[in-house]
């Protein structure tokens, strides 16, 4: 296929060539184990500290508050399960939302089976958590509030600062899954009263298989992966040095380019949204119109099933994703789309397009033109359309 318009940057991103460049020496040249005594490994130890500094700076955090993991899922599992454990004698109630990533939701379910109680907050039609609901859900035995910074499907950005303040006032730990937001919106852990924050390398042009968990100093959290004394004895396993260099370099890059990049993306995305809503009937935008990730657009096309749409887009060289159950072979469409109140049949016809800085308006024109044609084609073979 000649043309490739990659509009699935929320699923994963291209590792930036400069990131790969930075990683390369750590495979075959400085391959030593950072825990070693000899000077051959000193460079590795040093470079890990540097990456920690870059990340800490990006968040307004301290160097020793950054703990490397294998990705967003591990960070989320760690944050939930190991704080639940550490604070279990203080209380067994956790508050999260209905629109979290499965790494949070399934960890929460795991805890529910082990005697914890979890409140899953509703969201409004735009996917925003209602602060009053949050306040009402707080109990004396609430030990943790976990609310994602921005949603991976509909891109809605939560009022994290307000949530952090509520948590702080009640002396409750606050974790945020910032896997989608970090690198796209400025984040300061102190301003937002964030105690823990999950992030993943491959969502911001870093490598796959590396992430981190920010843990505020003073938070008693247990280990999730037990073993060696790496990461200040909190996360075992030989350090993934190339991965760490990769995520550090990617974050440095993301922070440096954030303003310009997201400005451009927002403009192109808004152009996309405008054209789609104006030119394709029976279509809605999912997520908040303005409080959304700069690169996220999410539509529902009535009478259409998502996988069919994705495959036809693919035939035109366009990569997107869908909340349809059919893409995953499960019965229920995306829990996020259901949580914002979409009926099942409409949730099935959703399409998420997530941009990167290289996408131009010309690309978007091609995408929208293709989309119009495809949506019309699928609709004419849909038994629902005429109904």
């Amino acid at each position, binding site marked *: 296929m000649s043309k490739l318009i990659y509009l699935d940057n929320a699923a994963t991103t291209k590792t930036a060539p400069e990131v790969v460049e930075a990683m390369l020496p750590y495979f075959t040249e400085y391959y030593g184990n950072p825990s070693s005594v000899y000077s051959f490994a000193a460079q590795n130890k040093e470079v890990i500290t540097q990456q920690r500094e870059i990340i800490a700076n990006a968040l307004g955090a301290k160097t020793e508050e950054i703990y490397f993991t294998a990705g967003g899922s591990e960070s989320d599992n760690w944050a939930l399960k190991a704080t639940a454990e550490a604070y279990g004698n203080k209380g067994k109630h956790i508050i999260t939302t209905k629109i979290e990533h499965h790494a949070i939701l399934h960890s929460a379910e795991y805890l529910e089976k082990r005697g914890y109680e979890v409140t899953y907050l509703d969201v409004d039609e735009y996917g925003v958590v209602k602060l009053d609901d949050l306040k009402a859900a707080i109990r004396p035995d609430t030990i943790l509030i976990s609310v994602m910074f921005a949603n991976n499907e509909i891109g809605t950005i939560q009022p994290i600062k307000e949530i952090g303040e509520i948590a702080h006032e009640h002396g409750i730990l606050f974790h945020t899954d910032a896997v989608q937001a970090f690198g796209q919106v400025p984040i300061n852990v102190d301003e937002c009263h964030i105690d823990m924050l999950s992030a993943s390398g491959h969502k911001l042009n870093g490598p796959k298989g590396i992430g981190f968990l920010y843990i505020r100093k003073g938070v008693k959290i247990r280990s999730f992966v037990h073993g060696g004394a790496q990461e200040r004895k909190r996360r075992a396993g030989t350090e993934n040095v190339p991965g760490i260099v990769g995520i550090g370099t990617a974050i440095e890059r993301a922070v440096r380019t954030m303003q310009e990049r997201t400005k451009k993306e927002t403009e192109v995305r808004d152009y996309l949204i405008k054209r789609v809503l104006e030119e394709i009937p029976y279509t809605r935008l999912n997520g908040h119109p303005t409080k959304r990730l700069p690169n996220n657009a999410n539509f529902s096309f009535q009478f259409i099933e998502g996988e069919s749409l994705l495959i036809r887009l693919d035939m035109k060289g366009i990569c997107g994703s869908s909340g*349809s159950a*059919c893409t995953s072979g499960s019965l229920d469409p995306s829990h996020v789309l259901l949580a914002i109140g979409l009926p*099942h049949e409409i949730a099935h016809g959703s399409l998420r397009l997530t941009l990167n800085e290289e996408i131009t308006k010309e690309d978007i024109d091609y995408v929208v033109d293709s989309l119009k044609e495809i949506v019309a084609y699928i609709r004419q073979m849909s038994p629902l359309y005429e109904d």
Partner: protein
Amino acid sequence: MYSAKVMDHFEHPRNVGEIEDASGVGTVGNAKCGDIMRIYLDIDENQIIKDVKFKTFGCGAAVATSSMATEMVKGKTVQEAMEVTNKAVMEALDGLPPVKVHCSLLAEEAIHAALWDYAQKNGITIEGLQKPKSDIHEGEEDEAEEY
């Protein structure tokens, strides 16, 4: 993910459309689960399927199995059409991913539902044909267990 045959039938689905005053129409599936399939049969007095059309709301496999199934029953007698099982359709498509097997079941059911409709209208019985569990014309919500 999909075989070349599936992709071919998905990309160029055969027999899309409707038949006015069809001899039999069957609609199965459930929009909530993301799949609805409707099959129209035009059957002559010798019980031969002269024409067949379909409309499908569903995934790539659902579209491809609809297309293949309609191809396979066209020109057959109603009795022969009973042999177009989901297995036969899947084989003709060079297989489907495991999570997509239920979509091919839908095609079989849609044909059966259309045949049942035809049989009902004409007061005949087709050997081996049972009342479809999930024709949407009868009670809507009771087919989720199948897959």
